[in-house]
């Protein structure tokens, strides 16, 4: 019985075993050879004279040893750690893991040379060279040091002095110095057309136009290249191009990602990113705005909008979800994304335990977490329309003006209502002087005694409303006559009552007997939402305290008050709840036993409408007592004598409903509250002032409804506590002992003194010039964008397990230069693109194929397949279909029908865009997480479900099928064919134009011949079956030029397709 392999116990045994052999003399031989085999190819520095801990040793120890002998104390074996000198040099009863200078006395050397370590089942082995390197390091004194990326950037980086006129700038000097060491020399410059195409794609994501090519070829001036680069950097398409990489990192998407994958309205963030790059916002500010724009002094709207970065994680609305679990996941996602995108660290590894390799403890992980968990969010969402709070309204300038007007009208209406109350004094006196003998409570539209039931209906003594049972409720003796007793699952609704929206005033009056449940239970509600509704009105009871809420999205968009004292336990108590429709907490009032209750305001910010959304559960959208779908009901509670008025009744009227003393009796001895009664109930002017308040609220809420809203960051007034969560689980114990405060890992520069230790402090820390990671990570990603691979290949991980930089000094030089330039992204790109390194031709030679197949040394220029976006944008641009409109809501480009909904009946229908909207740049396509555009995914775009900073580049048959058969590509081919057939030239010139437009250069003789043959063959084919030609040219939404011969057009279309599918187009070289 049992499982195969239990590594923990076996490992322990192995470690405990005695080893007899000493160090073989063989090693000394191997040491000498160790660098021969690794130098040329492996990205590590060329043969060093002396072992460097950071460069040579740490990678080996980390990959092969630290899992069991590293920073994580929980997984540490035999209590031996090799990540610190203290651990490695420790006396273990006359044995030492490492004895500096004496490999033969070092336990580590014994174990690894005997091949006992690492153990077989770890799946790790040490090569002879690695063993030799470690041995040599120990022989040299076993000097420990920091990982290179944690070392601060030097104040200046010396540029190698190379004697050559090849370098144009310092980048080239670093690259050439390395090439010389490797006995390689740079490639000749790429042909002008090739460089132009490369640079145009890299900087704008689009192919160069015929005019641009011609202009550049004709420009023989000294600064022709510079002129092109400046033109490209100034192009609005620059922002669209460079944003794609950041949007991958920011996991930007247009849908929420879980289960029903509803659409997430967050495109203004995408537009902000594009705009920021186009305006060349300094990169430190770019990061700071996204991390903590809301906390900057008097933040601009854009700065607050930028913080949406932290809210782009997936969000769930799946039924049955526990909000606390998802709230935790969201905070975790924020931390992990921050770690990868900004610091290049895999901090996420420390969520469940101390990081196995990097110096980040689990406690430090939750110190980061503490910066990101402190917003008032619910944890689940309800619908695409109701934006999870905290959120920001983004009115257009016109909306802004109208909104200001409506808000001041609403304020004015409230002031006018106050004034009307004051002005009513003479009228009140006049009314009193008239000695009224009868007074009533107007506006009562229902009174249900619950004493009689007829065909499952509880009749009302006034109006048309009636009570209805929701499932079984017991009839029991009540405050007067009969009452109902609830079982927690069932309740009663009152059908036919008004007050669905926030601007409608109302009063509820009823009697309850509270059995005193400790958790919050639903007393009364009119809410929507599939699960626990949090959209509408409700009255909750928790341990005797009442909470009245008016909500669109709890807790950020609501008004709510809570009583300061309890209702009596078990005894009949009278409850009154009034709302004046004013949209403010002051308009909510609670009464217990006829007196206004002292309350605390919990939240007082409400915008847009509150009701009429979502699945309303069994209450069907009516007012309901004692239960709510999937919520805790008023179990064991009793209810009697319901009264509803469509006005916020005055206190006197509530008292009357409580004590039953008729108002007429009160009039005989005028009591406190009579004035308020008169104003509220009788005075015509005051009543119309109240109606004006409600009207102003109606106008305001209805108008707000149409305003774009986006989830952003906004800190809770007091920080939410954070705890080290055992195994990263949301429901792990939260105790005083494991509570953590905000902070940064000890292995990185200290936070320094801050007045407030909040996200802004963190943002400042990240962008401080002495943060060793941020600038290195940023320049590396730019390098990756231009060369396909970063100087550090693992652009997502600058930790110990990440790869070493191929050109560490160059990386540091670029990072230093970047900071000193004021984090100037355009300048950095300009420098790289104009370097001789970048200008080289990318053609391979036999020598280079052998010496550096992956081009990590840059003896040739970069060559890369176009990205998914570039592939599609190229055919749109070359055909002239491209609609260059920037920004705005996402559009739905072509995709095979039914993909969104074929296995997801909960998700919205895909409605393909029409007209020119169909031909927008791919960055503006709807990115739907659970169902990304398949043609984009096939070309290695990612689903944006999680932060990604590197895309793979594959080459698969499915890509061929997309390019050959997808309507987008066939249609674009036809449109381009039309363009050239409309030209007044011969077919050869037409073919040339097609080629230039798509491949950015003229075809050579062989290519021209092949393409002409293609055209002729295809024409022959279509002549045999002209109907097939007609069918081909009618593929796609746009209509073919009917003046053209269908056979000619079809044949030319296939010719264009041939070009479109060729390497010359799909790769930039």
């Amino acid at each position, binding site marked *: *019985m*049992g*499982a*195969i392999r239990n590594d923990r116990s076996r490992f322990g045994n192995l470690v405990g075993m005695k080893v007899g052999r000493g160090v073989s003399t063989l090693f000394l031989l191997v040491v000498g050879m160790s660098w021969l085999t690794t130098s040329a190819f*492996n990205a590590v520095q060329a043969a060093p004279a002396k072992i460097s801990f950071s460069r040579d040793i740490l990678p080996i120890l980390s990959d092969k040893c630290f899992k069991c002998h590293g920073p994580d104390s929980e997984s540490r074996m035999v209590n031996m750690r090799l990540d610190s000198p203290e651990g490695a040099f420790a006396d273990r009863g006359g044995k030492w893991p490492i004895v500096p200078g004496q490999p033969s006395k070092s336990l580590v050397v014994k174990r690894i040379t005997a091949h006992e370590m690492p153990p077989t089942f770890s*799946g790790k082995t040490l090569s002879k060279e690695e063993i030799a390197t470690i041995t040599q390091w120990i022989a040299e004194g076993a000097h420990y040091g920091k990982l290179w990326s944690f070392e601060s950037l030097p104040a200046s980086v010396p540029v190698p002095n190379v004697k050559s006129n090849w370098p144009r700038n310092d980048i080239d000097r670093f690259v050439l110095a390395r090439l010389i060491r490797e006995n390689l020399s740079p490639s000749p410059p790429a042909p002008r057309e090739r460089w132009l195409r490369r640079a145009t794609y890299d900087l704008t994501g689009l192919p160069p136009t015929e005019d641009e090519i011609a202009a550049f070829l004709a420009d023989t001036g000294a600064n022709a290249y510079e002129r092109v680069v400046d033109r490209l950097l100034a192009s609005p398409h620059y922002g669209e191009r460079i944003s794609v990489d950041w949007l991958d990192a920011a996991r930007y998407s247009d849908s929420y990602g879980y289960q029903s994958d509803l659409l997430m309205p967050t495109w203004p963030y995408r537009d902000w990113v594009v705009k920021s790059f186009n305006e060349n916002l300094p990169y430190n500010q770019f990061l700071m705005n996204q991390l903590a724009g809301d906390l900057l002094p008097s933040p601009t709207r854009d700065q607050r909008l930028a913080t949406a970065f932290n809210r782009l994680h997936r969000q769930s609305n*799946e*039924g049955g979800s526990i909000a606390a679990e998802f709230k935790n*996941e969201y905070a975790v996602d924020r931390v992990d994304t921050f770690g*990868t995108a900004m610091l290049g660290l895999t901090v*996420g*590894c420390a969520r469940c335990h101390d990081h*196995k390799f990097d110096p980040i403890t689990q406690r430090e992980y939750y110190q980061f977490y503490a910066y990101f968990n402190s917003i008032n969010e619910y944890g689940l969402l309800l619908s695409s329309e109701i934006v999870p709070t905290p959120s920001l309204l983004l009115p257009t300038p016109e909306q802004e003006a109208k909104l200001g007007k409506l808000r001041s009208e609403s304020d004015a209406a409230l002031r006018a209502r106050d004034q009307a109350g004051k002005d009513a004094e003479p009228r009140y006196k006049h009314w009193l002087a008239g000695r009224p003998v009868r007074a009533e409570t107007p506006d009562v539209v229902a009174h249900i005694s619950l004493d009689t039931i007829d065909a499952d209906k509880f009749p009302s003594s006034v109006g048309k409303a009636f009570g209805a049972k929701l*499932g079984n409720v017991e009839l029991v003796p009540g405050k007067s006559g009969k009452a109902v007793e609830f079982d*927690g699952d069932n309740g009663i609704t009152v059908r036919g009552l008004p007050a669905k929206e926030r601007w409608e005033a109302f009063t509820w009056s009823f009697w309850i007997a509270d059995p005193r449940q400790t958790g919050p239970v639903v007393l009364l509600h009119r809410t929507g939402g599939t699960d626990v509704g949090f959209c509408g009105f409700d009255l909750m009871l928790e341990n005797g305290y009442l909470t009245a809420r008016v909500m669109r999205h709890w807790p950020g968009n609501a008004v709510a008050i809570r009583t300061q004292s309890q209702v009596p336990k078990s005894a009949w108590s009278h409850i009154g709840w009034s709302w004046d429709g004013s949209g403010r907490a002051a308009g909510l009032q609670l009464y217990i036993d006829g007196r206004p209750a002292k309350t605390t305001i919990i939240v007082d910010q409400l915008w847009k409408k509150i009701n009429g959304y979502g699945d309303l559960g069994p209450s069907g959208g009516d007012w309901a007592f004692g239960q709510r779908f*999937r*919520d805790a*009901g008023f179990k064991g509670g009793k209810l009697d004598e319901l009264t509803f008025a469509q006005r916020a009744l005055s206190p006197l009227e509530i008292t009357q409903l409580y004590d039953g003393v008729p108002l007429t009796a009160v009039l005989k001895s005028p009591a406190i509250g009579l004035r308020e009664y008169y104003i509220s109930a009788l005075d015509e002017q005051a009543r119309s002032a109240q109606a004006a308040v409600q009207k102003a609220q109606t106008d305001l809420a209805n108008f707000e409804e149409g305003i774009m809203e986006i989830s952003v960051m906004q800190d809770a007034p007091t920080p939410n506590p954070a705890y080290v969560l055992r195994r990263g689980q949301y429901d792990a114990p939260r105790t005083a002992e494991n509570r953590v405060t905000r902070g940064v890992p000890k292995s990185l520069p200290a936070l320094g003194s801050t007045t407030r230790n909040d996200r802004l402090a963190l943002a400042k820390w990240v962008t401080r010039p002495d943060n060793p990671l941020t600038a290195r990570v940023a320049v590396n990603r730019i390098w990756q964008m231009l060369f396909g691979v970063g100087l550090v290949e693992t652009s997502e991980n600058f930790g110990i*397990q990440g790869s070493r930089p191929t050109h560490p000094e160059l990386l540091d030089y670029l990072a230093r230069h970047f900071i000193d330039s004021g984090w100037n992204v355009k300048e950095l790109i300009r420098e790289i693109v104009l370097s001789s390194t970048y200008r080289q031709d*990318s053609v*391979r*030679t036999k020598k280079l*194929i052998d010496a550096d197949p*992956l081009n990590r040394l840059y003896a040739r220029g970069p060559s890369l*397949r176009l990205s998914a976006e570039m592939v599609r944008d190229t055919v749109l641009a070359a055909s002239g279909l491209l609609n260059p409109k920037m920004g705005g809501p996402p559009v739905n480009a072509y995709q*095979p029908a039914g993909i969104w909904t074929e*296995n*997801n*009946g909960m*998700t919205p229908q895909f409605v393909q865009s029409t007209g020119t909207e169909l031909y927008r740049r791919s960055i503006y396509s709807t990115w739907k*997480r*659970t169902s*990304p555009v398949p043609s984009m*995914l096939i070309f290695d775009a990612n*689903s944006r*479900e*999680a932060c990604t900073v590197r895309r793979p580049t594959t*080459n*698969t*048959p*499915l890509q*061929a*099928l*997309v390019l*050959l*058969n*997808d309507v987008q590509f066939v249609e674009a081919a036809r449109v381009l064919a039309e363009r050239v057939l409309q030209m007044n030239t011969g077919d050869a010139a037409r073919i040339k134009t097609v080629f230039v437009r798509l491949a950015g250069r003229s075809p050579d003789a062989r*290519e021209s011949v*092949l393409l002409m043959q293609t055209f002729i*063959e*295809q024409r022959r*084919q279509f002549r045999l079956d002209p109907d*097939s030609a007609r*069918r081909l040219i009618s*593929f796609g939404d746009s209509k073919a030029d009917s003046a053209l011969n269908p056979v000619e057009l079809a044949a030319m279309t296939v010719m264009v397709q*041939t070009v479109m599918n060729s*390497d*010359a187009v799909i*790769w930039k*070289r």
Partner: protein
Amino acid sequence: MRPEDKRMRIDDLVGLTRREFFGRAAQGFGALALASLMPSWVLGDDTKVNGVLGKLHHPAKAKRIIYLFQAGGPAQQDLFDYKPLLNKMHGQPLPEAVRHGQRLTTMSAHQSVIPLAGSPFKFAQHGQGGAWLSEILPNIAGVADDLCFVKSMFTEAINHDPAITFFQTGSQIAGRPSFGSWVSYGLGTMNEDLPTFVVLASVGKGDQPLYSRLWGSGFLDSRYQGVRFRAGKEPVLYLSNPDGICGSGRRAMLDRLSELNRHEYEKELDPEIESRIAQYEMAYKMQTSVPDVTDLSKEPNEVFELYGPDSRKPGTFAANCLLARRMAQKGVRFIQLYHQGWDQHGSLVSGISVQCKDTDQPTAALIKDLKRLGMLEDTLIVWGGEFGRTSYSQGPLEPAVFGRDHHPRCFTVFMAGGGVKAGTTYGRTDDYGYNIADPDGNAMEPTKQDFTNGAVHVHDLQATLLWLMGVDHKLLSIPYQGRDFRLTDVHGHVVEDLMQ
């Protein structure tokens, strides 16, 4: 650059040639093209594979997997896990001692009573092994002796999206490679002109959604993602030539394209261009091989009778089972089926009956069919959902409307073929069907950290399935974001007792 390139960072000169091939050219050639270069039978060794592993860790019992995923969470109490006590205590509240403080979803957590619900279906024992099965699985009952039941599965997630993502990718968090893509990455292909990893989903079922991440490649290359086959005219997206392009016209165009690319290669010497040429040939082949494999019309009548009347309707579970068998014959390595509709929160009796009608006969037919063809022994079939269901009723306990909520603490999956121990049952639950129990019926609290005899965590099942495929789950990994990622995260134990 692919993360796996890092693997071979320090390599000898011979290895570098290999790296140039695998690390760069192979990216281009993709799994399919690789196959045409190095079909496994040419390798002349049973343990050699053309995925990144190169060689299996041990001889495989199963060459391929057909995973019949039952999305939504089938109710084990009404299908496999016979619990007479529930019928006896029908309507009584679930004892607190049995629930033991375990969390519930918010769909039933606030219910004022949680009444135990007996199964309305009759159970009987079947086969030599005496497996208890519900009356609504008559055909599966007929092959009971081919099945290996695990009644003590457990998982961590309680909501569908995280739970199915966990089952299919080893993590509740999105972004990890799916099971099939791991197999595709590690083992590579066994055919020349079909994908390695194919996905089929029953059409028109509604209910809990499926997501492309379930067959996505996560941080592996996108060439390892599952290829979704759809019912209808175009079984694979973008497969068909546009209307108006005939076969010979396309062939002529591809020939010219190939010449064009070859010309480019001569100038650039980039192996990617060669691989590009191969990809177009592969795509062209797929245009024939895919319609071939999906064309059921040549199947004899008795096969349709075996799979049931639905097998003639494209896109049904029955048709997909038959299609899966055809793909298995053609050497597709990982065939992932999905059947939605098992989320019986209410109206369980009618709902689950429909589900069984959809799936019972085709599942049994697939097993019989493979057996008949001699393929069952090296084809691993898995049947199960993302979690189980509660032994209590969600909502009122009335015959027509009662349902069961999600239950991650114990549920049943079964396997057949591929080296599993046929005719057996592994693990048990307590008499309430609420907790995994020891052989005496006492509730246990297994965790994923340590293997508990008699309990199978999701990672344990994944580890076991990989083991049957000849793979040590701990050694099929890829360095990403600073650590070695694998399907089983840092957990998983191979459950020997499930194997022959």
